[in-house]
C-alpha cells in the first residue's frame, strides 16, 4: 500500500477543526430547549459560532486537541509497522501546523515532547485486521476535561444501592453524570461499557462512541436503557457548561461485554460536546472522508 501520511494529516485536520454534522445538528436542536436570554442558551450559541469559525479557518474546535485515538481496520497483508510510522509522522506535522496542540507530557519527568509523540502509548492506535480490500482509519480526539470525569464502578455499589443488573447500571451512570456537573464540557455524550475487566471495559466505553449520534444498540432492552438514561440525565438540570438548563446529555451509547463471574464493571466515558470523530476509507487509489 502507498504512503498515506498526507491523507492521514488531512484526517487529523478535519477531525480537529470540523465537528461531524450529526453532532452539530443535535447541538442546534438543543438551543430551542433552553430559555431565551439564559446563560445556557448563550453557551450553546457561542458553541455553534465556534463550530462554524473553526471549520472555516481550519483551526482547532477546542484548544485541548486531546488524546488522539486511532482505530485502524486493515486488509490482510498491510504492514501495521508502516501504518503506525505514517500516523506518527502525520501527527507531528499536524502539530507543527497548529491543527493539534502538543499534548504528550512525560508523566515521570513532566516534559512535553512538543510534537504529540510520546512512547508507544501516545497516540493510542488500535489495529484490527479485516476481510476485503478497504482500509479504514477512524480518529477520535478526546480532551482531558471530559476524560477526567469518566468513572468506573464495580457492582454491587452499596452507597448507590446499585446491584448487578441493568437497574444497577442505570443508577451508577446517573451518578457519574451528576458528579461530572459541567466539568466535562456539557452537554456530553455517554459511552458506557458493561462487563469486561477494568482495562477492556474502559477501552470499549470509548470505542462505542465512534458510532453516529442516535445509533441504538441492536438489543431492544439496551436501546431502551440508552434512551432512558439520556432522558433521566437531562432531568437533573445541570445544563450546558453546568450553567443549569435542559441539555446535559445529548446521547447515550451502551455496549455489553463478557465478564468474569466475580466482576461486574460499569465504565462510563464522558465525551464533551466537542465530539470530534472522523473516518477515512482507502479503496485502491481513492481516499474517501466521511
Amino acid at each position, binding site marked *: 500500500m502507498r504512503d498515506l501520511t498526507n491523507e492521514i494529516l488531512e484526517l487529523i485536520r478535519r477531525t480537529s477543526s470540523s465537528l461531524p454534522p450529526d453532532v452539530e445538528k443535535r447541538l442546534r436542536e438543543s438551543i430551542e430547549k433552553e430559555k431565551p436570554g439564559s446563560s445556557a442558551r448563550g453557551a450553546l450559541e457561542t458553541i455553534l459560532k*465556534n463550530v462554524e469559525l473553526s471549520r472555516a479557518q481550519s483551526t482547532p474546535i477546542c484548544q485541548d486537541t486531546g488524546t488522539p485515538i486511532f482505530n485502524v481496520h486493515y486488509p490482510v497483508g498491510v504492514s501495521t509497522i508502516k501504518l503506525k510510522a505514517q500516523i506518527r509522522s502525520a501527527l507531528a506535522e499536524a502539530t507543527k501546523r497548529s491543527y*493539534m496542540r502538543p499534548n504528550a507530557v512525560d508523566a515521570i519527568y513532566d516534559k512535553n515532547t512538543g510534537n504529540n509523540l510520546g512512547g508507544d502509548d501516545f497516540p493510542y492506535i488500535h489495529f484490527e485486521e479485516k476481510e476485503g480490500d478497504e482500509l479504514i482509519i477512524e480518529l477520535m480526539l478526546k480532551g482531558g476535561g471530559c476524560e477526567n470525569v469518566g468513572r468506573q464502578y464495580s457492582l454491587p455499589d452499596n452507597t448507590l444501592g446499585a446491584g448487578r443488573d441493568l437497574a444497577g447500571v442505570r443508577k451508577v451512570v446517573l451518578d457519574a453524570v*451528576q458528579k461530572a456537573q459541567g*466539568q466535562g464540557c456539557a452537554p456530553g455524550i455517554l459511552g458506557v461499557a458493561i462487563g469486561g475487566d477494568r482495562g477492556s471495559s474502559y477501552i470499549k466505553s470509548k470505542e462505542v462512541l465512534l458510532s453516529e449520534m442516535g445509533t441504538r444498540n441492536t438489543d431492544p432492552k439496551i436501546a431502551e436503557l440508552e434512551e432512558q438514561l439520556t432522558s433521566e440525565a437531562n432531568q437533573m438540570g*445541570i445544563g450546558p*457548561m453546568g450553567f*443549569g438548563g435542559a441539555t446535559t446529555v445529548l446521547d447515550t451509547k451502551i455496549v455489553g461485554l463478557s465478564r468474569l463471574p466475580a466482576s461486574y464493571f460499569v465504565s462510563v466515558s464522558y465525551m464533551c460536546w466537542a465530539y470530534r470523530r472522523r473516518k477515512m476509507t482507502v479503496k485502491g487509489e481513492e481516499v474517501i472522508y466521511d
Partner: protein
Amino acid sequence: MKQLNTPISDEAIRDLKVGDSVLLSGTMVTGRDAAHKWMIETFVKKTRPAQGDDMQVYEELKKLLNGSVIYHCGPVVSGLDTKEYKFVAAGPTTSIREEPYQADVMKHFNIKGVIGKGGMGAKTLKGCEETPGVYLHAIGGAASYIAQTVTKVYGVFKLEFGVPEALWVVEVRDFPVVVTMDSHGGSLHSVVEESSKKVLEDLLAK
C-alpha cells in the same frame, strides 16, 4: 452585558453578581496546573528554592497580575519558531484542579478575576470574598472563537513548562464570560450541584 477592563477596581468587583454577562478587555496572564503549583511552592509557601529566572519572572508577574486576571488556558499557539506568537485556539481548561492553590495565589498577587470553566470550590469562593475577586466562566471548547478576542500576545514566561502550561501574557478585547462565583459568597456551581443532587436522589429511589 457589562464591560470590564483590567486592572479592575474592588468597587467594580463588588458590583458583579452571579449570572452577570461580562465582556472583558485588557492585559491578562494564562496559568494552569504547572504554573499554580510553581507559584505556590516557590513564592507563597517557599517550599522550593527559586531557580533560574524564577525571581525575575516573579517581579514581572507581581506587576502584571496586580488587579488583573489569570486565565486557566493551555492555548494552541502558532509562530513558535519565529517568536511571532499568535493564539490559534484558546478556550478555558477545567478550573477545579487549581482548587488547592487558587485562593492563596489570588491573595498573594491581588488577582481580581479567575477565568476558567466548570467552576471552583469553597476555598476559592472564600478567596473571592476576601481578595475581593470573581470567578468568570468562559465557554469550554469555544477555542477558535475565544482566540479571536486575543488581539496581541506580548510574550511568554516559563515556556519550559510546555506550550499549554506556560504563562502567556496577552491582550484581549471583548472576551465573553459569565460571573458564576462572586465576591458575596454566591456560586452558581454550588446551586446547580445541590439541585441536581436532589433530582439524582429521587431517581435513585425509583
